[in-house]
């Protein structure tokens, strides 16, 4: 199994005709994702040609796309100024799961958009996230398909390329994944570590979990407490930003140490004190997972 996306995913791409949108739509289709529609206002009636020559219909609005194609998942590649609006449009059109890739959305826009999505009962992943991939089933977002492979590890991360690094080592070590989720680097994200832990907990195929955090906020600390209370499979953690100075935003809008809160040391300590094995280097992540799975299968 997998979480959030699988073979039943019917994807609509918001911003399908943009540079990023069209590139990644091709990538997602090549991976086998069921892309059923695209949306670009003013380009309704046109089609997007997939890598296998299939034509994906383009609509002016998400509600039209949903009505015509029964899309249930959306991925957003529209520019920051319009992206929060695109999230609300998707939620309003009845989309259940909305993946917001866009980086640079004003945080107060997202506060409203998250509230709106909650009111509509939609789940938002991101924004400013690489999306997610359930190996062999569906890829929604920008995670590279070639580095993943099916297997027993669930991975959740605040980072993009650092996730690739971790997955790369997992795959090389023969440790495939159920789903790899990039929850995003913004302060206000729709799906947090805990939500993913909960979902992995309901997936019998996920037999170990990797959690990749970074400086800023307290999500990792809360997730650590959740792990101890509710997670039955082994969890391996990694935190980026041990050398980050306080008060400086390390690229991600959410990666900032405010005063004495949100340091890497604090988070690593929380992990360890709640029974999460902490990798010191990215390459150790796969080693710890392998050891944990071996231990788990022995016990």
């Amino acid at each position, binding site marked *: 199994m997998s979480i959030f996306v699988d073979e039943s995913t019917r994807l609509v791409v918001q911003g399908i005709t943009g540079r990023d949108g069209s590139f990644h739509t091709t990538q997602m289709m090549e991976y086998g994702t069921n892309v059923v529609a695209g949306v670009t206002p003013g380009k309704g009636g046109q089609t997007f040609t997939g890598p296998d020559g299939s034509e994906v219909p383009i609509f002016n609005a998400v509600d039209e796309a949903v009505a015509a194609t029964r899309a249930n998942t959306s991925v957003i590649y529209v520019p920051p100024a319009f992206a929060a609006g695109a999230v609300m449009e998707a939620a309003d059109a009845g989309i259940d799961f909305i993946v917001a890739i866009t980086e640079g959305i004003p945080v107060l826009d997202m506060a409203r958009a998250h509230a709106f999505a909650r009111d509509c009962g939609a789940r938002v992943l991101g924004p400013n996230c690489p999306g997610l991939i359930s190996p062999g089933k569906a890829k929604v977002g920008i*995670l590279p398909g070639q*580095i993943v492979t099916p297997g027993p590890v669930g991975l959740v991360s605040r*980072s993009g390329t*650092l996730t690739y690094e971790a997955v790369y080592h997992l795959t090389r070590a023969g440790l495939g994944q159920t789903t790899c989720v990039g929850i995003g680097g913004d302060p206000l994200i729709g799906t947090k570590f805990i939500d993913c832990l909960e979902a992995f907990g309901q997936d019998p195929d996920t037999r170990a979990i990797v959690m*990749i955090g970074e400086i800023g906020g307290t999500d990792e600390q809360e997730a650590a407490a959740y792990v101890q209370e509710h997670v039955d499979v082994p969890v391996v953690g990694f935190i980026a*930003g*041990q*050398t980050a100075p306080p008060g400086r935003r390390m*690229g991600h809008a959410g990666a900032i140490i405010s005063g004495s809160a949100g340091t890497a040391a604090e988070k690593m300590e929380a992990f360890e004190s709640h029974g999460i094995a902490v990798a010191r280097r990215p390459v150790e992540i796969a080693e710890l997972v392998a050891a944990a799975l071996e231990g788990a299968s022995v016990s």
Partner: protein
Amino acid sequence: MNLHEYQAKEIFRDHGIPVPPGKVVTSAEEAASAAREFGGMVVVKAQVHSGGRGKAGGVKLARSPEEAAEHASNILGMDIKGLTVEKVLVTPAEDIASEAYVGVLVDRVTQAPMFMVSSEGGVDIEEVAHTNPDAIRKLSVDPRYGLLPHQAYWLANSLYDDPKQIKQAAKIMGQLYRSFQAAGASMAEINPLIVTPEGEVKAIDAKVSIDDNELFRKPDVEAMRDSSDEPQAEIDAREAGLTFIKLDGDVGCCVNGAGLAMATMDLVKYYGGEPANFLDIGGSSNPEKVVNALRIITSDPAVKVILFNIFGGITRTDDVANGIVEATRQIDIGVPIVIRLTGTNEEEALKILEREGFSAYTSMDEVVEKAVELAHQN
């Protein structure tokens, strides 16, 4: 983006918050003339993007224009936490009967703006949060409704007993929230919010951080940017669309992705080195970005080696390789470059680099160890 006190006060004033007048000056003479204009005692305050100005000696009371000039001349040029003071604010000194703290910031947990107020003002609110958390009243603002009048009253009611002061403070809460929204802030705070002996509630210090993602649509706020105390390299990086933060080490880092960039810095440290910077070239694989990145890294004379760590997902590693080749043609690098490239179009990238005589790695640990080794050698 952090604003100076005087800029934050301007925004507050525009939204009706009672803020004493002030004059920003850059010389002792101007400070004296401002003090003369206000009459009476004034405060001379360093305008730098840093907390703890008072402790550093950057805030001084002056009894006369002459004393104001003297303080200004001491404070101007002063170094506060590595930042040089270029401007001081001269403002009339206020008599203070009590000090409170009022702040609003974007809270990750509630996904909404959150007010924090405390009757213990004028001190470090983080310290209050640790030592006496009950002294802080918190309120999450539903972004669908904004700050409601009874919520503003509830906050104000925890600060004061006098109904008039509660009313004034409740009004200020609403004005602060509107300031916060209008400026696209991620944090806005008044510390302290004072009561004068006459019972007037006033904001005598102001701090506002702007959400960088708002700046594209807030040209008036963007215009408040003061880069004078910012390293030139960071200014150049921002203009080139890169995220760069100068650090104290000697291993120049050039990475795609913020998380991987931090992990790379951490690994440099792990192997006994010191990173010279954080640098994220971002997701798109524009060769021009690589050229700009190298130009910025090499502008730091402390850099002894340059470390590339690129994991190609969207980023095409061959583009990065081309960028490196292009940059070394344009710029005299002067220090060794070690490169790790893996992922999308990796084989082509390695070919490009080899053709130009670069040796490239595919393991992150290996390349970082090599970089630290080279830094120690040079």
